[in-house]
C-alpha cells in the first residue's frame, strides 16, 4: 500500500504527461501480482466498493473530532478524503505493523457491508499513515483525480512491458481487474488470452487531414463526415457493447441499440440522433447539439429515448461471424457491409452513403455544399486500404468544410501548463453585443489556446503583461485592444454562456495586430450562423 500511495502522491504533483507515464510504468514493472493489477484498476476507475461512501468517511471522522473543527478543515482543504487522511487521530505508541498489500486492502474493502464498513475502515486507517489513508479513501470511494485517463494508464502499461498499446486496448475491455491474463501476456508468462466470445473493443482506424493535397478519385472513395460520435458496435457471445473512440464502454447510455444487432460482428459507424439538420430530410440526422443531450448519462429516461432516438450510420466492418476483415481492402469490406445491411433493422441502422464524384474538382464543388447541409465535411478512403489501428498516412483523409471566421477581441488570458507554464497562452475572447461606438459591451464567445507559433506566443505573452487590467489568480483581464481572427467549425446555442452561444473547435487563425478593437464582429453576426 505504501508503494501505491507514493505513486498516487507523485501523480498528483506531476503535470508532465511523460513523467506521469514513466511513474506508472515504473510502478507496474516493480509491483508484484496481483497488486499492480488492482492499482491499474484503481487508476482507471475500474473498482467499485458500494459499501463505502464519502459520507461513511465523514461520519467516521465526526465521531473522533469536533464537528466544527472538521467542517472548518474540510472547507479549507476542499476534499473529504484528504481532510480525513490528515485529521485521523493516529493511535499513540502503536507498534509498527508490516505494510498492508494493495491486494489485502482491496479484499478487505470488497468484503465490507454498510454495517461493517465503519469499524473496518477505522482499523485500516490506524494501520496507515496520512498518504496511505488518502490512497485508501480514494480507492474506496472512487474518483482518483490524479489526472490519469484510462488511455494514459494503458499507454503506461504498454510502455512498461514494451507491447503495442493497440493490443493492450484489444484485451483490456474483455478482462476484469486485476487483469491477470493481461499481465501474464505482457510479461511473456502466457500466450495472449482467448477472447473469441467476448464483445471487446478494437482500436479505431483514424484519418489524417487532407490539407492542400489532391487525390485521384479512381483510387479513393468519398463519404460524408457526419457530425455525431464515432462508435464501435460489437456483438459476441450473445452480448452487444458500444464503445466510444477512446474505448470507453458506453452501452448503458444507448440501451436501444443493444438488442438490435443480431449478427456476431464488429462495426464502425457514427452514432447520431434522428432529425433533419444534417443533410436535410434525406440526411436524416439531428445536429451534434441534439446528440449531446444523450451523452454522458448512466441511465436514460423513456422521454429521452423518444425525443432523441439514436441510430448508427455505418462506415465499416471489422469482423463478421468469425471472419476478421481488417486485412482486406476497403472495397471488399464495403461490399461485405452493404450485403450485411439487409440483415440489420433500418430502425437503428443505415449505411453511410458514398458521395459520387467524377473527379477531384467535382468533389471539391460538392464539399462546398457541406456548410449549408450542416455536415462536417468529407472523408476520403483509399479503396485498397486495410483497416489498421491509428492514423496511417495515405489510407484515410478527412476533408472538413472550410472553417468559419470571426474577428474577436481578447478579454482574458490564462497561463498555460507544462511547456507553456510561464506564458499566457489560453485566451478568452468576445464579440460586441451591439455598436461599440454607442457603448456596446464585449461578451465572451469562446476560448482558444492554439493556432499560433512560438514566436507569436512570446509576443502575445508580452502583450498580456503590458496590458493587464486585473488579476484573478492565474487569469489576467486585459485591455480590449487586440483582435484575433478566430476560426471555428460551427456555432450552437448554449445556456451556459452569457452570449447564448458556443463555438465548436475554435482556434486562432490570425492575430490582427493591425485591426482596431471596435471593428471586431458583433454577436448578432455569430448568432446568424447557428444551425441547431
Amino acid at each position, binding site marked *: 500500500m505504501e508503494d501505491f500511495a507514493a505513486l498516487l502522491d507523485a501523480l*498528483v504533483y506531476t*503535470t508532465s504527461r511523460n513523467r506521469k507515464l514513466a511513474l506508472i510504468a515504473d510502478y507496474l514493472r516493480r509491483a508484484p501480482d496481483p497488486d499492480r493489477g488492482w492499482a491499474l484498476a484503481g487508476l482507471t476507475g475500474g473498482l467499485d466498493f458500494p459499501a463505502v461512501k464519502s459520507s461513511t468517511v465523514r461520519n467516521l471522522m465526526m465521531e473522533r473530532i469536533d464537528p466544527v473543527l472538521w467542517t472548518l*478543515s474540510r472547507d479549507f482543504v476542499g476534499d473529504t478524503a*484528504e481532510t480525513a487522511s490528515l485529521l485521523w487521530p493516529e493511535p499513540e505508541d502503536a507498534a509498527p505493523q508490516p505494510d498492508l498489500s494493495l491486494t489485502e486492502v482491496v479484499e478487505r474493502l470488497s468484503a465490507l457491508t454498510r454495517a461493517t464498513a465503519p469499524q473496518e475502515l477505522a482499523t485500516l486507517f490506524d494501520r496507515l499513515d496520512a498518504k496511505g489513508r488518502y490512497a485508501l479513501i480514494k480507492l474506496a470511494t472512487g474518483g482518483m483525480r490524479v489526472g490519469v485517463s484510462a488511455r494514459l494508464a494503458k499507454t503506461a502499461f504498454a510502455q512498461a512491458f514494451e507491447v503495442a498499446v493497440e493490443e493492450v486496448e484489444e484485451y483490456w475491455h474483455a478482462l476484469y481487474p486485476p487483469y491477470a491474463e493481461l499481465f501474464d501476456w505482457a510479461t511473456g508468462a502466457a500466450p495472449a488470452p482467448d477472447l473469441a466470445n467476448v464483445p471487446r473493443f478494437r482500436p479505431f482506424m483514424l484519418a489524417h487531414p487532407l490539407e492542400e493535397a489532391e487525390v485521384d478519385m479512381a483510387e479513393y472513395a468519398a463519404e460524408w463526415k457526419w457530425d455525431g460520435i464515432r462508435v464501435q458496435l460489437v456483438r459476441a457471445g450473445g452480448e452487444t457493447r458500444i464503445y466510444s473512440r477512446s474505448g470507453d464502454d458506453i452501452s448503458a447510455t444507448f440501451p436501444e441499440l443493444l438488442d438490435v444487432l443480431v449478427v456476431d460482428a464488429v462495426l464502425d459507424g457514427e452514432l447520431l440522433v434522428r432529425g433533419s439538420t444534417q443533410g436535410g430530410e434525406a440526411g436524416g440526422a439531428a445536429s451534434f447539439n441534439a446528440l449531446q443531450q444523450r451523452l454522458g448519462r448512466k441511465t436514460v429516461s423513456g422521454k429521452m429515448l423518444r425525443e432523441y432516438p439514436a441510430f448508427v450510420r455505418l462506415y465499416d466492418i471489422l469482423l463478421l461471424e468469425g471472419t476478421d476483415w481488417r486485412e482486406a481492402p476497403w472495397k471488399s469490406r464495403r461490399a461485405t457491409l452493404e450485403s450485411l445491411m439487409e440483415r440489420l433493422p433500418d430502425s437503428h441502422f443505415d449505411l453511410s452513403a458514398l458521395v459520387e464524384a467524377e473527379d477531384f474538382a467535382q468533389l471539391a464543388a460538392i464539399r462546398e455544399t457541406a456548410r449549408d447541409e450542416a455536415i462536417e465535411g468529407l472523408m476520403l478512403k483509399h479503396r485498397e486500404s486495410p483497416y489498421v489501428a491509428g492514423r496511417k498516412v495515405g489510407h484515410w483523409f478527412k476533408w472538413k468544410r472550410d472553417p468559419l471566421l470571426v474577428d474577436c477581441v481578447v478579454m482574458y488570458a490564462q*497561463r498555460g501548463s507544462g511547456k507553456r*507554464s*510561464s506564458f499566457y497562452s489560453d485566451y478568452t475572447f468576445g464579440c460586441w453585443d451591439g455598436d461599440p461606438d454607442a457603448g456596446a459591451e464585449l461578451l465572451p464567445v469562446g476560448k482558444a489556446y492554439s493556432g499560433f507559433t512560438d514566436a507569436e506566443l512570446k509576443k502575445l505573452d508580452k502583450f498580456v503583461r503590458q496590458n493587464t487590467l486585473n488579476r484573478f489568480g492565474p487569469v489576467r483581464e486585459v485591455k480590449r485592444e487586440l483582435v484575433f481572427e478566430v476560426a471555428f467549425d460551427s456555432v450552437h446555442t448554449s445556456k451556459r454562456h452569457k452570449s447564448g452561444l458556443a463555438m465548436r473547435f475554435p482556434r486562432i487563425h490570425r492575430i490582427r495586430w493591425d485591426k482596431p478593437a471596435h471593428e471586431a464582429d458583433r454577436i448578432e453576426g455569430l448568432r446568424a450562423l447557428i444551425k441547431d
Partner: protein
Amino acid sequence: MTAPFSWIRPEPWGIHVVPADVWVDPSRPVPRALVTHGHADHARGGHGETIATPATLAIMHLRYNTNEGAVPAEYGERVTLGGGVSATFLPAGHVLGSAQILLEHAGERVIITGDYKRSADPTCAPFAVTPCDIFITEATFGLPVFTHPPIVEEIGKLLKSLTDDPESCVLVGAYALGKAQRVIAELRAAGHHETIWLHGAMEAMCRLYEEHGVTLGDLRLVSDAPSKEAMRGSIVIAPPSALNDRWSRRLPDPVTAMASGWMRVRQRARQRGVELPLVISDHADWNELTQTIGEVNPHETWITHGREEALLRWCQLNQRRARALALVGYEDEDD
C-alpha cells in the same frame, strides 16, 4: 482605576498601547511603533520611531534604506515606554531577530507573539515560553490539518529529488527573509555543501544573515551562472512569485518545489504548479499553537490573524477564554 487591560486596544491597523501611545506592528505610519519582526506586513516603513531588536532594525534598514528613528532593544532588555508601560522583547523563533513583545502596565502582563514557531531553527533564537495574563497569538496555520513534519524529512525529500534526477535542477520557492536562509542552513546541516544558486532578490538578505553569524556556505547568483548547464543537478532558490514566471526560463529543466506550510494541502500545491511540495514553515502549526497556549496558560487568549475561528473553537472546547481580533493587512499567502 480603569477596567483591566483597557490600556491595550486592538484596532484594525494594529494594537494600540494607549498610556504610552505606541503601536505594535501597525499597518500604517505612526509616531512610535514596536515591531516584532522584519516581514514587510509587520514591519512597515515611515514610523517616527521604531523600537525593535537590532537584527529586525538591520532588516528594515536594508529594506527601506533608512534607519531614521531606529531604537534597538536587545532580547530580555526591559524598555520603558512612558505612561507606566514597559516592553520586553523575547525570542519568537520565527526568523532572525523575531520577537514576542511582553508589555507590562500596572501589574498586568500582555504578550504579543507576532509570528512564531516552536520547532528548532538554526538561523534564529528559540521561542521563550513566558507567563502572562493576556496572550495575543497569531493563527496562520490555525486548523488541525496543519501539522508540519520534522524539517529533516522535508530536506531529505529535496535532496532525494536532486539525486533521483541529476539532469534537472530543483527550483525551491521560499520567502526571501527567513525561509530561504533556514532551508539553506538545514541543507548544509544535512551535508549538502555544493553551490546553491540564488535569485537576485535573495542576495542581500543572505548576506545580512551571514553578518549576523548564520553561515550559509557557497551561494551564487543565477545571473552569474556561466551557463544553464552549470546549474544542472543543483538547488536554486527564488521567491515564490518567480516560480512560474519568465525568470525561471533560464534554468535547466527545473523541478518546481515550494517550501511552505500550505504545501500540506495537495490542492494548494497543485494550484501553484508545485511538483515537489516541501512542508516547511516558520509559523507554529496547529499542535504548536495549542501546546503554546497550554504552556503559557494565560488568563485570556486573543487571536490576531490567520484561521482564528478554529483556534477560537479549540479554546472554547478547552474552557479557555478567548477572542478573535480583526486585524487587517497581515499576509500569509506565501509562507
